[in-house]
């Protein structure tokens, strides 16, 4: 403990935490400052000034002590405690002004209150250690038992006080008494901790005394029994014997330390500390290394328990087992003393530098092992997610399923929410580190975790139907006007739909929501919403951040409006809230090269007028992707491409070889029935992975010998087949036939509509089961079969557009189309004017090209977002949002930054599906009992 007298420790113990604390508080203040009342701002600035003065004084003092090479005096510890304890008390007394109620809960980080205590607690603990160390000189005779007695006297006195004095207390100024009691309690806690640490320190100082001779009598409880008891108590193992529990479900007060390694390390650590300090260098060196390795364990628990130390006295008074809270502190004192002794001894045999390096490396071993373990999780997860969402179809993947299974388990554990605010199912510090290292401080939606589990472990995967948003019955459009102007310079119609929405009902807090589909070659270029009397323009922002902010504001019943792409051309539009009889005005602007009709909330919006101005033709040649108007399409050649079978065979773990042989028979039969489709047929063997099989002779035996891995990941096989077909761009096309007996167990999203453009003949595929039943599914709804199956040999014409050497096959319909060249991703993007047609075409083609080459999405989606911001045209990665105030805008910026920095596959916290759980049986029994009690009391009174 003498080492702690070195003033350099203050850099780590005080200066660094205070700097981090200042950044945390400042960052939060920047977001919420516009919402604060002047009185709260005054509190913030007072706190800031006081903390600044204290910190500068502290830093100045440490610099002086370092430069004059002096040790910290005992009085330093006392002054530190006398200053920082009242400071903390002062802070918590006005905590309600720091985060007042006007700051919504989703915006107010309530952990801020905990941070202050947690970050200043090392300074307080250090001050205590300095006092103990300085005022307990080894050469002076000190009695450990006396210090213990004094320490134990504190809770004893409080107990007596509570039993005898409190019941006899007859009023007085209760507020003043309360304050005096709190202050007395704080200082008696410090007094208690001082004498306790001093007692332990004296014990470890004594080499020849009774304590040293019989050291195991106190060492075994402090280093082995108490840590194990503490873990067991926290984890609920002791509930029955104690008669009470501090655990709920699989959560503990201090965290979830149920992993066997915590117990094992507690035993090893205790065992190493209990071993005698023999003077033999080949014995002491490995012992020192072992103790240094375990030091990280002791430090970890000390850090967890430091913020709770002030509560130790209460815990002792409230529960007998509360003294276990002091174990990490006692363990730390014992541990550091043993390290000091080993260090001194080894210095006689090795150079100081060698011993220091050994100590440093050993102490870092456990943290490094944890980091390596987490980094492995990150790699596993990234690799698996890349395969699921951004696969390179030319690359072969091999995921370690065992490791991934473990990672999925950890992710699920991390996603569980604590049932109460004081319970935790996480590991303090480590969970936050995991979240930062593995998940970039974001999260992974339950749907994605389920999908990983289904693909690689073959577990069932159920897609939840897309959430439907709808208006309250009383909320409807009361007025609607359309303004359309043709901009000859841009070659585009600019239409604005102004809406007046009224809540005719008596109830407030109602929402207007609708879904509508954008017609081809029509894009959203602006949005506004009146908030009060002020017309607020829509902010184009990243979609995940915008929807997160909207949901948070929506839950707090404030004023947001949002517009975003839900799926392919489908848009969600929501405005909230409507007070009773309130009329609100909002509007959406569109650009479209030719007149379009939009089905909007039961009405048809006619945007633009015929005839189409002459300048409207095709555009965007420079990007190799271009727009073809409906008129231009009439002039294109119609062709029939040559169809060929592309079989996707279910080769998942659940499929037996007998079933596989039946598929072979079916393929042979289909080849006989449709010879014109069978010449160049292709097969995708699909389980967790998709392996193409050429139509060579012994494909059947080759298939039987292949290993089946995980579930039937049909989505990947379909995406791959469609992308490959689009890239090949030949005069033939695949007729996709899925051979699976359990179509429902196929792992696939409900809609693959964004890939519809990849197959000009029609966005559908066929399924045939073992009984030979044939069904056709649309890419827009992969879960429900079409009413009648489309014949496998149906002839569908397509149009051919030629640009340079390239040919583009397009659907033979009367709708305008954007022809997409996947090479767009390699072209340098030029600057686009605000609301220009070129920008809209470029964005759409770029988005579609990314669907065909998903492995390029993580590196290139930001480019799409950037263009969307520049052009003001909404894309599938952006959203239009109107927020109410500057604080919400600041929060939006923060969230957007977080999403942009993180992995594109990670998510922000999702809007959780709520369970409509009924009250528990015993809660009802209790309720009934209380009601009966009330009734009987009433009856007696009557």
């Amino acid at each position, binding site marked *: 403990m003498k080492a702690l007298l070195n003033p350099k420790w203050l850099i780590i113990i005080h200066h660094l935490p205070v700097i981090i604390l200042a950044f945390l508080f400042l960052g939060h203040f920047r977001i919420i400052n516009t919402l604060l009342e002047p009185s709260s701002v005054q509190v913030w600035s007072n706190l800031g000034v006081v903390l600044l003065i204290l910190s500068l004084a502290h830093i100045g003092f440490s610099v002086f002590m370092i430069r004059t090479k002096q040790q910290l005096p005992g009085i330093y510890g006392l002054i530190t405690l006398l200053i920082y304890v009242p400071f903390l008390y002062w802070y918590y007394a006005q905590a309600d002004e720091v985060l007042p109620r006007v700051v919504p*809960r989703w915006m107010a980080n309530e952990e801020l209150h905990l941070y202050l205590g947690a970050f200043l607690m090392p300074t307080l603990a250090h001050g205590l250690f300095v006092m103990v160390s300085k005022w307990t000189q080894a050469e002076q005779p000190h009695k450990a038992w006396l210090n213990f007695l004094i320490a134990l006297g504190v809770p004893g006195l409080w107990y007596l006080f509570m039993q005898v004095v409190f019941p006899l207390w007859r009023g007085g100024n209760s507020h003043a008494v309360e304050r005096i009691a709190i202050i007395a309690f704080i200082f008696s806690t410090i007094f208690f901790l001082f004498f306790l640490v001093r007692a332990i320190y004296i014990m470890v100082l004594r080499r020849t005394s009774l304590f040293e001779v019989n050291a195991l009598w106190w060492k075994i409880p402090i280093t082995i029994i108490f840590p194990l008891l503490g873990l067991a108590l926290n984890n609920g193992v002791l509930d029955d014997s104690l008669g009470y529990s501090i655990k709920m479900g699989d959560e503990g007060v201090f965290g979830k330390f149920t992993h066997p390694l915590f117990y094992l390390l507690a035993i090893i650590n205790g065992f190493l500390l209990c071993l005698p300090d023999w003077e033999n260098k080949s014995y002491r060196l490995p012992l020192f290394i072992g103790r240094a390795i375990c030091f990280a364990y002791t430090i970890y628990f000390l850090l967890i328990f430091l913020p709770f130390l002030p509560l130790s006295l209460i815990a002792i008074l409230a529960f007998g087992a509360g003294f276990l809270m002091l174990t990490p502190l006692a363990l730390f004192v014992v541990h550091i003393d043993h390290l000091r002794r080993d260090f001194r001894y080894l210095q006689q045999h090795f150079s100081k530098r060698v011993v220091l390096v050994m100590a440093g490396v050993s102490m870092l071993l456990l943290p490094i092992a944890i980091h390596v373990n987490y980094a492995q999780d990150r790699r596993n997860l990234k690799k698996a997610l890349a395969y699921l969402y951004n696969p390179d179809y030319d690359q072969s993947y091999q995921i370690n399923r065992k490791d991934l299974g473990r990672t999925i388990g950890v992710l699920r554990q991390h996603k569980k929410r604590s049932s109460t605010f004081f319970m935790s199912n996480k590991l303090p510090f480590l969970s936050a580190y995991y979240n930062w290292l593995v998940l970039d401080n974001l999260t992974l939606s339950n749907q994605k975790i389920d999908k990983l589990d289904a693909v690689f472990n073959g577990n069932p995967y*159920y897609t939840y139907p897309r959430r439907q948003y709808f208006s309250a019955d009383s909320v409807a459009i009361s007025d609607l006007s359309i303004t359309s102007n043709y901009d000859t310079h841009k070659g585009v119609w600019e239409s604005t739909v102004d809406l007046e929405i009224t809540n005719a009902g008596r109830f407030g*807090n109602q929402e207007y929501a609708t879904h509508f589909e954008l017609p081809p070659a029509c894009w959203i270029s602006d949005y506004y919403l009146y908030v009060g009397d002020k017309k607020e323009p829509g902010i184009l922002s990243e979609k995940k951040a915008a929807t997160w902010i909207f949901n948070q504001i929506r839950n707090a019943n404030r004023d947001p409006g949002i517009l975003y792409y839900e799926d392919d051309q489908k848009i969600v539009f929501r405005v909230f809230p409507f007070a009773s009889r309130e009329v609100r005005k909002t509007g959406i602007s569109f650009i479209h090269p030719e007149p379009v009709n939009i089905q909007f909330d039961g009405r048809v919006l006619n945007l633009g007028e015929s005839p189409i101005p002459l300048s409207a033709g095709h555009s965007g040649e420079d990007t190799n992707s271009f727009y073809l108007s409906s008129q231009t399409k009439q002039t294109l050649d119609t062709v029939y491409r040559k169809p060929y079978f592309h079989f996707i065979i279910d080769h998942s773990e659940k499929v037996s070889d007998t079933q596989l042989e039946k598929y072979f028979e079916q393929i042979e039969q289909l080849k006989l029935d449709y010879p014109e489709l069978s010449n160049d047929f292709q097969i995708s063997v699909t389980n967790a992975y998709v392996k193409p099989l050429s139509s060579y002779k012994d494909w059947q035996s080759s298939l039987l010998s292949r290993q089946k891995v995980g579930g039937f990941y049909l989505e990947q096989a379909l995406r791959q087949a469609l992308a490959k077909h689009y890239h090949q761009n030949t005069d033939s096309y695949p007729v996709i036939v899925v051979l699976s007996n359990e179509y429902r167990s196929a792992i696939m999203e409900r809609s693959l509509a964004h890939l519809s453009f990849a197959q000009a003949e029609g966005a559908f595929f066929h399924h045939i089961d073992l009984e030979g039943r044939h069904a056709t599914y649309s890419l827009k709804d992969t879960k429900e079969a079409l009413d009648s199956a489309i014949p496998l040999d149906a002839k569908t014409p397509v149009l051919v557009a030629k640009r340079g050497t390239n040919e583009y096959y397009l659907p033979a319909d009367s709708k305008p189309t954007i022809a997409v060249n996947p090479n767009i991703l390699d072209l340098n993007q030029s600057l686009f004017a605000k609301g220009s047609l070129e920008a809209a075409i470029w964005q759409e083609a770029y988005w579609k090209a990314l669907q065909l080459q998903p492995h390029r999405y993580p590196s290139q989606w930001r480019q799409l977002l950037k263009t969307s911001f520049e052009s003001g045209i909404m894309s599938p990665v952006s959203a239009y949002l109107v927020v109410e105030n500057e604080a919400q805008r600041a929060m939006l910026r923060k969230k957007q930054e977080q999403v942009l920095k993180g992995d594109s596959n990670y998510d922000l916290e999702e*809007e959780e599906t709520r*369970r409509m759980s*009924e*009250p528990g049986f015993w809660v*009802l029994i209790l309720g009934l009992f209380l009601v009966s009690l009330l009734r009987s009391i009433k009856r007696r009174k009557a």
Partner: protein
Amino acid sequence: MRNINWQLKKEVYWLLGLVLCFLIMKGWYHYASLPELNFLLFPTQFALQLLTGGNATYIPESGYFFSDYNILIDQSCSGFNWFLLAFLLSSGMAIQIIQDTRRRLLAILGLFVLSYGLTLLVNTTRIIISLSVEQYLLEYTAHAHLIQGVFVYLSFLLLWQLSCSYFLHQLNRNYESLT
């Protein structure tokens, strides 16, 4: 005296039977899967669809998902707790009020069926009230949901208790006047 003792003894047996019934039902519920609770869940979600106009999708191993409201009706929402309490409460009253064994047995069977029907009504009401209430609260927390649930359940339970007491006494009186 002997007769009274025997009568009391008999009632104890009945009540013990009720306790056994409780243990069996509670034990069964603890391990019951989603399909096993469908006798409560299916009609409840059907009624919810009818009354709210929302569409439910059955997701195996999860429950009935209402995408319109982003809610899930699963094991925890079956209403079994109310069913169990309503049945036990009313059966206990039947044992106290009706002396004739055959009629007592018949009454318990009838109360079982009635409790089941009422459970569907009460549970559906609880969910609909919950969906309505959340729109008017600044923050609808899990605690608010629990309090609202307890309020609805207890209100119906008390009503059920009063109705049972009235009708069982009435039935008993009618029977006694006939005999």
